[in-house]
């Protein structure tokens, strides 16, 4: 048993750290470290920089143009990226639809879509949730009817992150309404420029427009855009959700935010001393910090199990719950650290982050759903 990185892993960390430091654009870096909004162009530019280095697919196998890094290397890369203030790589292509196409797509789909995810040409959106299908995702109603060589899609998707920037969307659609709800779902890839697709932004509680409604009105989708089998979509959706959760612990960003919290709390004065020296406040920070230390090791345990080719299991649910609780706790403490100057609501302000991060315990399968998964799959209840 050994909790430290091997010499090879440390060498890899140094290489990643040096590359990131030399290549992350200064203006983007400043935005990330100060919690300001990162633009579409910032995100794309970083994807392209990585792509030129051959690192555009940090979580992809080599045969599909990825780096072939093992889970521990991927973790190190993400941690270094977060610490250095790079924009977050878009998960929708790299971590969601990409792995689904690799596993369940045909050769033509792999050749058409995978390279364009790496180059940033395609910005994907995730079309899962609907107004009536949140936690109970399988009850989705968006209908796709086969008409000759295409499907006709009608319905409404919602909570679609960054759909305003996307040119492609992968959707779960109902292709058979007559069978058990999970058995009539298919996985469709839809070009967002197709006539009948409408994107309407939703303004969130922090004033941001991060998520959208996407409407489909008689949208014609060629059958070649069906992934895998018709009515096999639920299997692919579950496969994807497992991947989404593995990366949701966000240990790297949490460490970065903890550093920021400590900086704010040492600058802020209380009774003539730094707030961080106040025993009450220091104890609250420490309580979150020790939880984060534990989560980091828990995360590494899950990764090590994955690297040894033992299947990544429902432990991902644990990482999701704890990771989001810590993110939220840090944003709350930061707001309290800033005191009254946290009240003005403007982009990048601490209050905006606090409000915005409420989403983390709701998205990607709410934390209550994750507890159901733990209860059923790990505890066998």
């Amino acid at each position: 048993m050994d909790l430290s990185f091997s010499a090879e892993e440390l060498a890899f960390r140094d290489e990643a750290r040096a590359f990131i430091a030399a290549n992350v654009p200064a203006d983007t870096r400043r935005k990330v470290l100060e919690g300001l909004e990162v633009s579409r162009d910032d995100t794309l530019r970083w994807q392209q920089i990585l792509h030129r280095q051959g690192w555009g697919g940090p979580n992809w196998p080599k045969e599909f143009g990825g780096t072939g890094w093992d889970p521990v290397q991927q973790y190190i890369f993400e941690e270094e990226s977060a610490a250095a203030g790079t924009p977050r790589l878009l998960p929708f292509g790299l971590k969601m639809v990409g792995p689904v196409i690799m596993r369940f797509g045909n050769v033509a789909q792999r050749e058409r879509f995978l390279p364009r995810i790496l180059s940033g040409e395609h910005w994907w959106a995730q079309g899962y949730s609907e107004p009536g299908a949140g936690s109970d995702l399988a009850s989705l109603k968006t209908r796709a009817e086969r008409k000759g060589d295409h499907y006709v899609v009608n319905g409404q998707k919602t909570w679609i992150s960054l759909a305003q920037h996307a040119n492609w969307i992968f959707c779960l659609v109902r292709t058979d309404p007559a069978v058990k709800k999970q058995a009539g779902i298919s996985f469709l890839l839809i070009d967002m420029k197709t006539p009948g697709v409408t994107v309407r932004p939703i303004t969130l509680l922090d004033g941001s427009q991060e998520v959208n409604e996407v409407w489909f009105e008689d949208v014609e989708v060629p059958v070649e855009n069906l992934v895998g089998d018709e009515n096999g979509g639920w299997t692919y959706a579950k496969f994807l959700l497992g991947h989404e959760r593995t990366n949701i612990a966000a240990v790297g960003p949490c460490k970065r935010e903890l550093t920021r919290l400590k900086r704010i709390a040492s600058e802020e004065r209380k009774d003539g001393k730094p707030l961080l020296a106040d025993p009450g406040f220091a104890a609250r920070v420490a309580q979150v910090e020790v939880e984060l230390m534990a989560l980091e090791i828990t995360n590494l345990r899950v990764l090590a199990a994955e690297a040894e080719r033992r299947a990544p299991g429902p432990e991902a649910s644990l990482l999701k719950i704890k990771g989001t609780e810590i993110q939220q706790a840090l944003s709350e403490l930061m707001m309290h650290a800033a005191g009254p100057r946290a009240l003005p609501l403007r982009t990048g302000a601490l209050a905006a982050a606090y409000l915005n991060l409420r989403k983390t315990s709701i998205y990607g399968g709410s934390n209550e759903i994750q507890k159901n998964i733990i209860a059923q799959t790990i505890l066998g209840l």
Partner: protein
Amino acid sequence: MRFTPTPEQQQLGDMVQRFLGEQYSLEVRRKILDSREGWSREIWSKLGELGLLSLQVPEEQGGMAPAVVETLLTATATGKAMLLEPWVSSAIIATVLIRELGSAQQREEMLPVMAAGDRIAVPAHLEPGARYDPKVIATVARRSGGGWTVKGQKSVVLHAPAADVLLVSARTSGAPDEPAGMSLLAVAREGPGVALSPYRTLDGICAADVELADAPGTLIGSEGTAFAGLTAAFDQGLAVRCAEAVGALQATLDATVEYTKTRQQFGVPIARFQALQHRMADMLIHVEQARSMSYLAAMRAAETPGQERRRALAAAKVVVGNACRFVGQQAVQLHGGMGVTDEIAVSHLFRRLTALEMALGDTAHHLEQFVAASAEAEGT
């Protein structure tokens, strides 16, 4: 980075699990608990035969130290079994004290006999009013003739009634809250000037308050420099207590899951109710976070002392302590009326978890330690 033990380590872990599973059932433990001594010499001898008392003994004295993973696996098993015998007191803390502080001759004289199970030594350190602060020692040792005598009071000395030798920390110089000037003396438990007020702790361990009235003692190692060795021994003890806690936590969660699957109300097993399912999911998260920190504590305790070790061990004890409290309390709650009876395992586990949360410094103490160590590390 590797989280799996080697096959040899796993073999030892399995052997301990099997031994305690077969020979330390709840019924056996209850008999030991109800006996006058509160521990079993027979079990103790068997632990010696299995080599489990020599994990922290150096190779030169026939032991296995550092045996980091072996110690971790053994402690997880003894925690699950709620061992009443002085394994942590004698085979871990006292052994490390003699290993770190004793002269070559003392190590040779004491460690092999202790490893064989023929002599039990336990640390006598904490004093009334000192809470968990290891620096606050008022007991004094004076030269007397060719040797030393010790005078003072020690409180809650775990396993003192079972011990042949008390390893007493005492001042040979310095103020009562100074690390410097502390010495360690071996005092015969049945020797003159030693008076025990014995009792059981809340989890059934035999313990005593000890009054030392000019009791003759032997200086272990050199005079006035014992604090570093005491720190090393209690740090190792803390790591072992964390691992014991993980064993007890897992056993508590398992018992609760099992109970809610069998207990029927409203015509269904109560495990079907989501309020209970989510509570058990929360318990599992605590157990896994505690397990992660028990690994960290085990690794760090074997490393050189310093800010980083202190910080990691304090963090581990906080996470483990919170888990002990939450999982223990919820397990009792989910067992309903049965949970508050002496009859079933979970109430014993709850008592052990409560004691473990307080062992070698409670959660609040270690949260303060963590803050202090972090501040020093960051130079603030």
